[in-house]
Structure formats: C-alpha cells, structure tokens
C-alpha cells in the first residue's frame, strides 16, 4: 500500500493493480489475536467503513479475499450524499475531479423524447447530484486514503472461511496463500458483497424477488461528442421492444446497458463480436454514424431485489450488498452501501468506547433495514416499469409511454429509475420528536442538507464541511445554531449548560446564511442537533439544557 500511495495517480491503471499478500504476525500467534473490529470486504462499503472508524481512532483489520480492485466499471453513479460522506472521509474531491458530473436525464420512447429531468434544480450545494465514475477509481481512491491511516490494517488475499460467535467475540478462520489462521473480533462488519461468504457461513439468506430478465452491460471507449446526460430509451428503433441506457464515465468511456430478455444466451451476448453491432446500431441511430469505438469490460447480468431479514446477527453486522440487493436502475446499490457504512461507523466507535450501550448497534440494523426497504421499493417499481412482469403490466407501461408524448401528467409515471437520495430515517428510535413547529424536509431523521456558509476563517465555504468536528477520541454531536442576538445567545447558553460534548456551528444571519436558514426553516435561536453521520436527531426554536441532554442520550440509545 505504501507503493500505491506514492504512485503518480494520473497514470495509474487501477483495473490492473495487484496488491501484495503479506504475512502478518497474527498468523503465527499461539492463540488468536483479538481485534475490536474486523471488516470483511475491501469494496467501496468496507473501505468507507474502515476509513471512518480509523478517523474516529478505532483500529480496524480490513480483510479482502482478493488482491485487486473492481474488475470493470460496475457501480458508476455516485450520488451527492455519497460524495458528502466521502468528503468527511477526505477523498471526494479527487472523485469529483475525475468523474463526470451530471444532473440531466432524458427518456425516449421509440426515437422521441418523452421526458427529461434535472436532479439538482437548485443552486447552493457543494456537490453535484451525481458523478459517474468507474468503481475501480472509487475503490482506488478509497484504498489510497486508507493507506494514509495507520489504524487500518488491510490484508489482501485473506479469505474468511469460518466463523464461530461467542458471547463477547467472534472467532474467524481465515484462509491465505500460506494456509489458515484464526482471529478473534469484538465485532465483524460483513461488507463482502451480494454473494457474502459470511452470510452463507452463518446459514443466513437474503430474500426477495428475482427478475426474469437479462441485461448486457459494457464499457465502450469512444470519442463521440455526446452531451453529458443520462439517456434512457424504451423500445428504440435500434433495439426494438427492449430498453437501452447510455451513460458517460471518466476517460471518454461510456456505459451501455441493453435489455436482452430472459431467453438471451449470456455466453453469446458477452462476446465482443456480438456487442459491436448493438453499439454500432445505437451510435448510427443517434447521429454518430462511423464513430470509432472499442469494447472493454462487458457482462450479462440478472438481478434481484432482496434483503436479509435482519442486518445484525450478534456480533456480525451486515452492510452493503451482503445485506440488501437492488436492480441497477436508480443507482441505489453502492450508494446505499456507503450510507450503511456512514450509519455504522460512529455507532461502533461509540459502543467500543463505552459511550453508548450495545443497543445503539441494534439501531444500525433497524435504521438501515428501513432504508433498504425504501430502496427496494423504488428499485422494484422501476424494474416493474422497465421489465413488465405480465401482459397487463406491459399494456399499462406502453399506455403511459404513449400518453407521455402528448400529456405532461403521464411523464410523472415514466419510471426509468428513481435515482438515489438519502433515506430520511423518520421512524428511528434515535429521533426526538419535534415539540416546536417546523416546515420543510429537515425533519428528525433527515440527512443534513448542504448550503453555502462562510467558514471559521471567513472564506466562502459549505455548511456540511463545517458540521463534522475534527477527528477525536470521543463522540461529539454537532449543534447547528442559527442567527444572532438575544435568541441565539439564549440557545448557546442552553447548549453550554447541557454539559454534553458538542461541536457548535453557527449560521449567521444575513446573506451568508440565508439559504441555510431557509433550507432548515430556521429563525434566530433555532438549534438543530446532528448525529456524527450528519442526520438530524432533534431541533428546537429555543432548547433547554435538559432537552439537549435528553436528545443526545436518546440518539446514543441510552435508557
């Protein structure tokens, strides 16, 4: 990893990187070495979790069964909220610089545009609605960030092949190129993907709906000068009766996704000579006849919308694809996995430090199960529209598309994927219900919205950047205090008397904080209490010290 960090990143081919297996002293220990947290799987979710924990001063062992980053582009759409999490982890800037930012999507029926959307119709957010970036870049940048953190012990070619759970630890058996060894873990985070070995080793299942359809996905390098938009076709002339998705990635690479139907032969369809005519037909049809291209990674996939019944099993916490699966339409796979990590890291850190009871980890499971249901619901709805399951379902789908050509109302029904937004954890037991009246979406459970805000040094900056206190050895919640004058002073005094460790961020009145105040429906004296993952857990017009303390304790699952 030292070697990786010192590479010239601009010329690094992340897809071909190999990470060396290194023998660890734990492999020669007489009794299994004990570690507070072992994270299994160094994909985007496991890496994000490990970085977050290390930044919170929690040492982490991160195991990966392989020695490479993602093969092929795989997850490509990284949502604003994910970038905001990566900002907290210190690596979003590179991703945004390398990735392709986009807000606009267009939907076609036949060769006619029936619908378009702008995911970020308002200004005043640091990060774009989405960037498209090949998963190997995201993993590579996360791995480089992880390499900067001495508390992360990343072990490649370490495959978990056994687990026994005891009362106060889990015992893992790990297979390496030099044989097996055992590790004792206080907690295990299973971030090992949709075919999770930990899930199988524990005899657990993810259940849900499997969709009888096949899709061809391919990375295409081309120089065609196409706009940076998501384009989705239903029944286009170049691929009749099926859907097609075209999306730009970094390095002039494009993602194409052709619906093939259940009867397609996955082996034949993956062959380059069979992909080329499909891409050629697409390019010819959209006015790029003769454009040169070549095909890179390609895959034929099916998918299921499913989840584990519970994301926590004793000392094992499931996060990302191991816990839940969705269709790719909506970009809710990797994005929701990163939100799982975001939710889990601070809770694990607080429990390990004895600041919160074990019950806080139960709230990880319940909050993220709720989020998974929301993602699965949205994903299933999009999939039912794209892949109608019955004749009557297809009849209504086609009726919607036909009407959408002439009638605005039908365009709201066209569903080519409702793209990932952070789940508002409305029903969380960690929330303190409102006692004062507020308008707008920043309800308890919501992920904090960004807005322009001058930093402590007076320079133009962003609200979310100010929310996270510098890494420390203790859990600190953030209090967002709006306005000035007597009301703000009274609220600040109440926070001081609450006698809890708080990171206080003030939003001054006037133009610098105007948008923030509007987004949070704030007046002078309004206080928002934010968890370390930037989700709102309580808010008041004029808090009392007792209310602040009680809300903080509640959000730590105390009592």
């Amino acid at each position: 990893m030292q070697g990786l960090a010192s590479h010239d990143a601009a010329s690094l081919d992340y897809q071909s990187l190999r990470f060396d297996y290194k023998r660890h002293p734990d492999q020669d220990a007489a009794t299994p070495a004990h570690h507070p947290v072992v994270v299994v799987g160094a994909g985007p979710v496991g890496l994000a979790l490990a970085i977050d924990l290390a930044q919170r001063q929690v040492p982490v062992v991160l195991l990966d069964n392989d020695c490479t980053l993602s093969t092929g582009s795989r997850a490509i759409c990284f949502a604003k909220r994910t970038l905001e999490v990566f900002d907290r982890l210190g690596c979003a800037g590179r991703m945004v610089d390398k990735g392709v930012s986009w807000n606009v999507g267009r939907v076609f029926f036949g060769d006619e545009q029936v619908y378009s959307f702008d995911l970020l119709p308002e200004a005043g957010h640091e990060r774009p609605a989405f960037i498209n970036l090949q998963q190997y870049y995201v993993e590579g940048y996360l791995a480089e960030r992880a390499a900067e953190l001495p508390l992360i012990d990343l072990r490649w070619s370490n495959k978990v092949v056994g687990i026994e759970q005891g009362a106060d630890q889990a015992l893992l058996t790990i297979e390496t190129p030099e044989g097996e060894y055992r590790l004792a873990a206080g907690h295990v985070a299973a971030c090992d993907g949709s075919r999770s070995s930990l899930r199988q080793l524990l005899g657990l299942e993810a259940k849900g709906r499997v969709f009888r359809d096949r899709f061809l996905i391919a990375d295409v390098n081309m120089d065609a000068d196409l706009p940076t938009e998501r384009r989705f076709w239903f029944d286009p002339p170049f691929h009749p009766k099926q859907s097609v998705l075209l999306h730009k990635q970094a390095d002039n690479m494009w993602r194409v996704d052709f619906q093939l139907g259940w009867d397609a032969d996955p082996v034949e369809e993956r062959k380059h000579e069979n992909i080329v005519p499909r891409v050629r037909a697409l390019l010819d049809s959209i006015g790029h006849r003769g454009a040169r291209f070549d095909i890179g990674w390609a895959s034929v996939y099916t998918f299921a919308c499913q989840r584990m019944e519970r994301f926590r099993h004793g000392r094992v916490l499931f996060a990302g694809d191991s816990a839940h699966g969705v269709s790719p339409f909506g970009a809710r796979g990797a994005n929701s996995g990163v939100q799982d990590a975001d939710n889990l890291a601070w809770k694990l850190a607080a429990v390990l430090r004895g600041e919160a009871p074990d019950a806080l980890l139960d709230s990880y499971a319940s909050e993220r199960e709720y989020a998974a249901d929301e993602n699965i619901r949205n994903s299933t709805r999009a999939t039912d529209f794209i892949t109608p399951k019955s004749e009557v379902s297809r009849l209504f789908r086609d009726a919607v598309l036909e009407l959408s050509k002439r009638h605005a109302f039908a365009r709201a029904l066209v569903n080519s994927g409702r793209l990932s937004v952070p789940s508002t954890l409305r029903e969380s037991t960690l929330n303190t219900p409102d006692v004062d009246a507020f308008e707008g979406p920043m309800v308890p459970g919501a992920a904090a919205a960004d807005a322009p805000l001058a930093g402590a040094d007076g320079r133009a900056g962003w609200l979310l950047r100010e929310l996270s206190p510098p890494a420390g050895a203790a859990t600190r919640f953030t209090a967002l205090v709006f306005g000035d004058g007597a009301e703000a002073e009274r609220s600040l005094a109440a926070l001081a008397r609450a006698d809890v460790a708080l990171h206080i961020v003030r939003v001054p009145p006037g133009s610098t904080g105007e948008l923030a105040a509007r987004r949070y429906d704030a007046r002078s004296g309004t206080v928002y209490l934010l968890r370390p993952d930037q989700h709102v857990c309580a808010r008041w017009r004029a808090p009392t010290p007792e209310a602040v303390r009680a809300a903080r304790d509640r959000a730590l699952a105390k009592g």
Partner: protein
Amino acid sequence: MDLITTPNLDAPDDFYEALIEAHQGLSSDQSHAFNARLVLVLANHIGSTAVLRQAFEAAAASR
C-alpha cells in the same frame, strides 16, 4: 373525499353510447390499449390515490 358510487353522470346513456362508440373499429388489442390509456387519463383527473383505491375495490367486488 370518498368515491362517488351514487349516480353522478350528467347523461348516462349518452356516456355509455360514446364509450362503445370510441371502441368502434378497434381490434381487441387496440381496445385493451385504449382502455389502459383511458384508465390513466381518468386516474389523473381524479388525482387522489385514496379515492382510486376505493375505485379498485369497487371494480374488484363485481368480479
């Protein structure tokens, strides 16, 4: 608001004749497609999901 199940059409016989007339000359498939579009257009006019759910129940009860 509740689904109106008491007589509400301003000219019931005219409506019924027009409905059948609208299907004249359509194949069975075309008629199904027409009906699907009609349901969507009417659903948008009604607007309320609660009322539409009552309509689904009313339609299902006569199966």
